[in-house]
């Protein structure tokens, strides 16, 4: 790819980038969210027909105007999001579009045989190819996806975060497969956030930042710190520092709160100026607890007191008015309205507060939105831009801005920095700490252990719907949290 570029109406996503990958190498592509990695690879997959610059495959210039054209040049893509059809069998998914036929009908025996052979390439030879996709686990599905793409015999294979759904052993198996494919002369582009993985398998690495290429290096000639520095554009030494802040009166008191089947007899008090982490495995009831506290779901028993006032019977709208905020885990589905402008999103939680008599006018809130965009260094700064066009990190900051705008007394954040880049994470953490310092009570629900260690004054361990332990700041480390989250109740 020579000098390629792609503009969205709002942003330049890829700016004049040169990128090359040789046969028989694994080429890692790294960068923060929004750096343009995915867009660059989508170009290669033929998702856009309006890119600028030129793309060469085997020294021949090609115009990759559609996915089918890209496929015909031997470019295979494995995305983060699975592209398998759920109720259909593994075999039919693997061989979609090229099912063996016998006359008018599908040749079942041959289909099973071919599917078995493909599954073997990813080490799933024990799996019955006639099972529907929905019956196998997510990591098996991920491997099936890889087998599907490998089955089309691509000469260039692009993998976008292929290990995100895999366990440690499966990652090892995947690396074996990648190694084997490389030795057959395939060119492999490997996108990942996990730097250790890259040092394991990549031959070369290209770093992108702000839609531009920073550098391409041999993996032997570069250290992890150097890569991070290139990604962030600054040293990350100043990253982990905790400031002390005074703790005041209780702002949120939860007593004996239960939602049958999700969590039981939860007692919790969070004070002004305090950041309380909630740590637990997925399915421990963390998000359900937050949803009951904020009023999206109903409690079966127990009381919720916000700054001295019982809010248990109020609607979520009323609770928000009284100073409660809930930053949801899923920013795309539950956090933002992606089709609306940035200012509509930032002010969405305070529509009732911005009413003047019968009139709602977001001009009153516009100045606040502008200030938040500046404080959280959200890019772009033009409030009329559509939220969906922002990068993941900026969307997450936008979501935080939406709740900061309500000036909450108590803010519950569910996975506040999931899947965002280092820079956005730093801003989000700073903002959370500032909020606490200004006297709000903050609850952080997170699976990101370093995040909990860094932010929390204390951490409540949640397991199977109960709080099993309260860990003070001096006990906090990634190892101790992990251990506590996996310890049985009462142990």
């Amino acid at each position, binding site marked *: 790819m020579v000098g390629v570029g792609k503009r969205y*109406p709002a942003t330049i996503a890829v700016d004049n980038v040169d990128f090359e990958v040789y046969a028989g190498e694994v080429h890692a592509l790294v960068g923060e969210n929004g750096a343009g990695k995915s867009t660059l690879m989508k170009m290669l997959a033929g998702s856009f027909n309006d890119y600028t610059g030129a793309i060469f495959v085997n020294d021949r210039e090609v115009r990759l105007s559609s996915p089918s054209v890209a496929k015909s040049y031997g470019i295979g893509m494995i995305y983060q999001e699975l592209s398998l059809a759920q109720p259909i069998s593994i075999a039919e998914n693997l061989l979609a579009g090229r099912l063996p036929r016998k006359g008018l009908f599908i040749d079942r025996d041959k289909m099973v045989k071919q599917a078995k052979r493909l599954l073997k390439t990813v080490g799933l030879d024990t799996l019955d190819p006639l099972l529907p996709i929905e019956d196998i686990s997510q990591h098996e599905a991920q491997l099936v996806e890889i087998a599907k793409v490998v089955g089309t015999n691509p000469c260039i294979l692009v993998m976008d975060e292929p290990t995100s759904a895999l366990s440690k052993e499966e990652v090892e198996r995947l690396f074996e497969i990648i190694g084997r494919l490389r030795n057959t002369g395939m060119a492999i582009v490997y996108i990942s956030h996990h730097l250790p993985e890259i040092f394991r398998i990549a031959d070369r690495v290209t770093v992108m930042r702000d839609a531009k290429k920073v550098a391409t290096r041999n993996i032997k000639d570069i250290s992890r710190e150097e890569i991070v520095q290139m990604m962030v554009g600054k040293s990350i030494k100043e990253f982990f520092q905790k400031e002390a802040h005074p703790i005041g009166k209780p702002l949120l008191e939860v007593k004996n709160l239960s939602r049958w089947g999700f969590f039981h007899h939860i007692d919790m008090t969070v004070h002004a100026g305090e950041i309380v982490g909630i740590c637990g495995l997925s399915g421990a009831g963390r998000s359900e607890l937050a949803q009951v506290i904020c009023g999206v779901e109903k409690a079966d028993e127990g009381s919720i007191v916000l700054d001295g006032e019982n809010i248990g019977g109020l609607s979520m709208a009323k609770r928000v008015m009284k100073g409660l905020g809930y930053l949801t885990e899923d920013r795309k589905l*539950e956090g*933002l*309205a992606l*089709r609306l402008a940035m200012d509509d999103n930032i002010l969405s939680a305070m*529509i*009732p507060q911005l009413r003047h008599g019968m009139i709602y006018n977001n001009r009153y809130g516009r100045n606040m939105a502008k200030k938040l965009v500046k404080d959280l260094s959200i890019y772009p700064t033009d409030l009329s831009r559509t939220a969906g066009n922002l990068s993941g990190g900026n969307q997450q900051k936008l979501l935080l801005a939406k709740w900061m705008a309500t000036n909450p007394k108590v803010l519950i954040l569910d996975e506040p920095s999931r899947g965002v880049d280092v820079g956005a994470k730093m801003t989000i953490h700073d903002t959370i700490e500032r909020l606490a310092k200004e006297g709000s009570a903050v609850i952080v629900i997170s699976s990101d252990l370093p995040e909990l260690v860094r932010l929390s004054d204390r951490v409540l361990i949640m397991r199977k719907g109960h709080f099993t332990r309260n860990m003070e700041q001096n006990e906090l480390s990634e190892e101790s949290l992990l251990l506590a989250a996996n310890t049985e109740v009462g142990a």
Partner: protein
Amino acid sequence: MSEKQVNDVRALRTSRFSSILNNFGIYAIAVLFIIFGALLQSVGAINNFLNPKNLLNIVDAVALLGIVAAGMAFVTYSGHYADLSVPTTIALTGIVSVELLKYGFIPAILGALVVGLGVGVVNAVVIGKFKANPIIWTLSMSYVSLGIIRFVWVNKQIYPDMITDDAFAVMLFDNIYRFRLFGVISLPLILMILLVVAGQFLLKKTPFGAQLKLTGSARRTAKFTGVNVEMMVGMAFVICAFTATIAGLAITSLSRVGAWYNGEGYDFRAVTAIVIGGMTLAGGRGSIVGVLGGTIVIGLMNNIMTLLGIGTFSQDIIRGAIFILVVAINAKNLRSMGRDDA
């Protein structure tokens, strides 16, 4: 000013310009239609287009469709596409009002409103609260209303002057459609203007409108922001049923007969006006003023086609084709903005 600021200002200006275009582009198209009609008349292809009487015809037709579309637009805006029970709500409220005319004019109007809002509340509960598919549910609702009409009135049509001897009540009822302020401005037109102004205000200037926008654009997000989404969606259907009731009274007054077929075609024509007027089926976009523009364009188009001597069925084909075209363009625009959830 720094270069960046200059760019920001410029971006703001273009976005303002394009939003003006979005809102008023449809009126430019309406003007083009008028010019087109005038041209056709000047070359002799059609007669009487610019005749005051014909222009009044257009306005009257626009008024009826505009009343329906102004209400249904709330349903579209809420992200629920359309209310297909509108035609039968028109018929049902119309026939109820004629039946009740024997108790006087006021009971007739009130009865129609009660029945119409009743339909709206049922839609509101089933779609808002129980999250039924809006198309399937309102389609079922239309058959229920139709069944009620045919069962209660045994497949008969009823006429105001046969229902009651109260000539004054009949005269009042006839005048719902025929009353003209200063001999020109019809009552439906006045009602439509009031509804459009109220609708535009509600959608763009009130907390309800802002929350409906959030609901229509991203329902789950609205829920997790504290918006009472069930209430928002329900209100949209009640508003739609309310304007359908007004239209039912006007249309029944026009035809001087209460009959099951009174509202036929208003569902599709209203949706077309809404979509042409810039309100995408995806919800949360567009305005009532834009929908009025869409209604005017449809009115002009129908009139010109009729003057050209194009048959009713051919007109349906043309309208359908235009609808498909507009939806396709909408979908393509959304996709080029990086969103493919049209």
